[in-house]
């Protein structure tokens, strides 16, 4: 199978939330590929469907209301959509693990941090409980927490420290793929840098492939090899990091770069994208970006554009690049 060269390959992933008010089309025909040891930045505004995509990869989209409608997710060449729940349990926390957005709420308040790390080790590795506790303390050391804090509870730690514990849980079983969902959004700026540095080092130490979900292009510049820009549930532009930063093509990506404040520019030169991201319960026809796009043509509202490869493995989902 050709897919087996990639760590992860997602084809045509579509995820809906069926609510009383209507169907939320959170992820729409999403395509993405991640090579072994590669890190990819998944960038997009709040509500673009980033978290839903991540939960989809673990098959943890809350159901109800969420449902994977269509698509294939090849992990190491095997389609996990077809896998049973017991098979998925062997993958979660082991081959693929996830760091969640809010460290203040993602740890169990009634368990010591050591027990929470040991839990994932015991689930996936055969060893006596005492050994797992020892390994949990080693993991704490790796993320910079002294073992004398091992028996403390989450409420005794700051946000940054808690996120380190979450990272220790995620990396405890040396996953091949790590999904980090805005791991630093909830942290203070100074702590953000520390946590990012830690993740970068550990990722290299464990040789993990990574999906870094963020809306911060600075983080992408620092950590990622590739970038996928997400808009209204699908990837609209995908390229190597340098290529994308130097040569953004999709009108949405260009708009995104123009709306970043920069020390060199003053605020007046910012050009925010006009309008708002569409409500995923009520997506426009055709290209979902066309109502906000300066370069929109009549046909943009008629057909959802395909992804066009413009060379250098740079893919743009915009009709302007259909040559």
């Amino acid at each position: 199978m050709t897919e087996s060269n990639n760590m992860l390959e997602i084809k045509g992933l579509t995820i809906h939330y069926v609510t009383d008010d209507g169907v939320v089309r959170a992820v729409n025909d999403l395509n993405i590929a991640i090579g072994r040891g590669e890190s990819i930045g998944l960038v997009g505004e709040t509500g673009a469907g980033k978290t839903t995509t991540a939960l989809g990869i673990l098959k943890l989209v809350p159901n109800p209301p969420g449902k994977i409608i269509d698509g294939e997710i090849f992990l190491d060449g095997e389609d996990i959509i077809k896998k049973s729940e017991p098979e998925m349990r062997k993958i979660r926390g082991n081959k693929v693990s996830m760091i969640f957005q809010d460290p203040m709420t993602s740890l169990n308040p009634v368990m010591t941090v050591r027990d929470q790390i040991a839990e994932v080790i015991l689930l996936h590795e055969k060893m006596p409980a005492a050994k797992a506790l020892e390994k949990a303390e080693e993991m704490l050391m790796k993320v910079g927490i002294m073992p004398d804090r091992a028996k403390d509870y989450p409420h005794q730690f700051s946000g940054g420290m808690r996120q380190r514990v979450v990272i220790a849980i995620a990396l405890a079983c040396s996953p091949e793929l790590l999904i980090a969902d805005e791991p630093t959004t909830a942290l203070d700026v100074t702590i953000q840098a520390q946590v990012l540095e830690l993740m970068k080092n550990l990722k290299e130490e464990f040789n993990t492939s990574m999906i870094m979900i963020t809306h911060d292009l600075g983080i992408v510049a620092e950590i990622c090899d590739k970038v996928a820009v997400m808009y209204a549930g699908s990837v609209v532009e995908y390229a190597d990091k340098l290529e994308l930063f130097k040569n953004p093509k999709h009108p949405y990506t260009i708009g995104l770069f123009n709306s970043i404040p920069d020390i060199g520019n003053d605020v007046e030169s910012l050009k925010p994208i006009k309008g708002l991201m569409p409500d995923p319960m009520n997506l426009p026809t055709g290209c979902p970006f066309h109502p906000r796009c300066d370069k929109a043509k009549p046909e943009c509202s008629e057909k959802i554009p395909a992804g066009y490869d413009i060379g250098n493995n740079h893919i743009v989902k915009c009709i302007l690049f259909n040559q």
Partner: protein
Amino acid sequence: MHKYILKRLLMLIPVLIGVTFIIFTLSYITPGCPATMTLGETAPAEAIEALRQEWGLDDPFIIRFVRYVADAARLNLGETYATRRPVMEEILTRFPATLQLAVMGLFISVLLGIPLGVISATKQYSLFDNLATIFGLIFVSIPNFWLGMMLVVFFSVNLGWLPPSGFETPAQWILPAFTLGTGQMAVVMRMSRSSMLEVIRQDYIRTARAKGQKESVVVWNHALRNALIPVVTAVGLTFGFLLGGAVLTETIFSINGIGRFMVQSINSRDNPVINGGVLFLALSFSVVNLGVDILYAYLDPRIKSQYK
């Protein structure tokens, strides 16, 4: 933690004095002369007056109250008006049955209510959940005495499976314990359900699933340990209802507990028995709630660090 427990035990003293004061005031202001009721309306006035003197009924309220508290501190609760036997002794022979009944009711409400609530929550809006909701509402609304009588009619009179009264053999325990426990079981079930629904949506539950943990462990360990925290507090109050309910249940099933004893004593205005009984009920309620608070700290490390 030890310091906290000691502090709580010391706090029992003012609580019990306060309870005594209230019940003492109530029996003081209730009309009717105990001496007359004991000797009968036709007894000679001198005999009644002599008895009033002996029981100190003509002393000022405050003196009687202080005398009672001082005696109670030495575990002397006075004599019953009716039999002239020590109240302490009379209560101690009856208290175990009441306590056993209340504890059995507590076990029924907790051991059935919590699992049923958890299952309801994990299968929200399923047939099971809807049936549990309906039966829960029914059990909460049915008065104890009516449920007790219906159970007797059905299981004792019609089917002849269980004895209709008494509390000596295990077969005799079943109907009273269920009569007492079902209402609170429904309360505990509803509370466990809503607490569980709240917890199951939390991020740390998602974290547990993302570790590859089995759903059963996610629910019965990760979620339940958190969901129990508010439920445990409610269970302490539940025990108060059960002690109160025991009074009625003992009457229905002719159980020789302090509830029934107190009801009889209220009819004959036997004040020392009423005071002593209330004191015992208040003491057991306080002790159970202290136990609940300790359990609470054990369940929630965030509380534990506050107990100093």
